[in-house]
């Protein structure tokens, strides 16, 4: 009995030692030098692996930045400060300015404003609710089951009264929520130089009469916003107003459009 224990311990030990030696030898001969700047850049980056830069994570971004000596789109959550530091580390000018984007909710109807078609007792996910045909009469709006909340890396989203709300102090504009929203009510948009975020808080593409029946907050596509100000950035398409973000004007004329919208669909938020 003792023999077997001894034999197994010794043979396993010898095998372990053998493989350990082979591995350490391989580590020596097959070592790959890693650029130390990658580690330095990683220290600067926020490290939340949001993927907004278009790479798989902070490490992938750092490696690509070192390899090609480029900032690509830059780190969006990190902002200018981080990108400047990375630029210094790489010895290049941080010209790539991170786009100033935040997510907006193209629906402003809370529970009560939008009519429920039926109670949802299925899996607690917008994806499955959509498969079943939605919960509300309006088939375009926010389902409020919070698929986006689950993927937000910074906890900027929450669902209140059947509608998702964005905490703009926290939102980093990574766009993860946009990718998972089955309704397409989330959109990543630019905010203005003055730090204002404008959007049309509706996604309903039905005609005015139907919209009115389904929801108290819906855009009826009347087009006042397209006429009330000169060179209006608003466009009506499929009975729904949307913003052309390249044509957004000064706060004064934007305010006119906001006031004159009969459905109170145009939203404005100070985000910076």
């Amino acid at each position, binding site marked *: 009995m003792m023999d077997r224990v001894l*034999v197994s311990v010794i043979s*396993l030990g010898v*095998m372990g030692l053998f493989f350990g030696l082979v591995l350490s030898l391989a580590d020596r001969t*097959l070592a*790959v030098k890693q650029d130390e700047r990658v580690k330095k850049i990683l220290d600067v980056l926020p490290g939340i692996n949001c993927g907004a830069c278009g790479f798989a994570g902070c490490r992938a971004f750092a490696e690509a930045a070192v390899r090609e000596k480029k900032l690509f789109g830059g780190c969006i959550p990190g902002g200018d400060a981080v990108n400047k530091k990375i630029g210094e580390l790489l010895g290049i000018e941080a010209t790539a300015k991170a786009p100033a984007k935040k997510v907006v909710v193209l629906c402003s109807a809370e529970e009560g404003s939008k009519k429920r078609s039926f109670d949802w007792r299925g899996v607690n996910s917008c994806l499955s609710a959509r498969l079943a045909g939605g919960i509300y009469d309006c088939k375009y709006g926010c389902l409020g089951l919070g698929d986006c909340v689950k993927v937000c890396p910074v906890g900027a989203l929450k669902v209140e009264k059947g509608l998702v709300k964005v905490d703009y102090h926290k939102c980093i504009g990574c766009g993860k929520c946009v990718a998972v929203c089955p309704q397409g009510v989330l959109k990543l948009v630019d905010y203005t130089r003055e730090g204002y975020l404008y959007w049309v808080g509706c996604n309903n593409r039905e005609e005015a009469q139907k919209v009115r029946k389904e929801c108290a907050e819906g855009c009826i596509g009347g087009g006042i916003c397209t006429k009330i100000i000169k060179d209006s950035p608003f466009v009506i398409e499929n009975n729904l107003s949307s913003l052309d973000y390249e044509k957004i004007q000064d706060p004064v004329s934007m305010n006119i459009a906001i006031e004159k919208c009969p459905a109170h669909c145009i939203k404005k938020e100070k985000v910076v």
Partner: protein
Amino acid sequence: MKEIFLIFIGAVLVNNFVLSYFLGICPFLGVSNRLESSLGMGMAVTFVMSLAAAITWLFYYLILVRFHIEFLEYVVFILVIASLVQIVEMFIKKYSPPLYQALGIYLPLITTNCAILGLALFMVLRQYNFVQSVIFGFATGLGFMLVLVAMAGIREEMDFSDIPAAFKGAPIVLITAGILALAFMGFSGLISG
């Protein structure tokens, strides 16, 4: 010769590790989204499997059987396979960084891949000799690669098709894998006749 041929066909098609034993599902689902990386992964697995079959055979019969400590086979196999995969990983990292990038996390996953441990255990169970074991390992790897590449091809096509949102991603892949497994059942009568 006939026996080796039977082992080969058996491992590639009839008793395919992925689709009839359901071993190695993790890399099968994880790396089958791009044809290129699935081919790389398939080759890495084939390579590791052939090597692992040879080396585990040697260790099993020259050490474990000789000292009558066959009960250690699990520990020893895992040790051998893990070390082997580590070496392969270092090798790929050094000589083919793009492949290393493409394989990502799945390369270390070969370490604990049940398909490879299963291979070593089947090899002992069926009492293959050295040549048969190596052929068995190689064929199993090829079978794995075949299924992986077939799946990757299907998934690349699927990217262009209109799948209901709730089925996108993992669900449709699992359904496809199930149908693929059903199709592979058709091979079950291939050898017996």
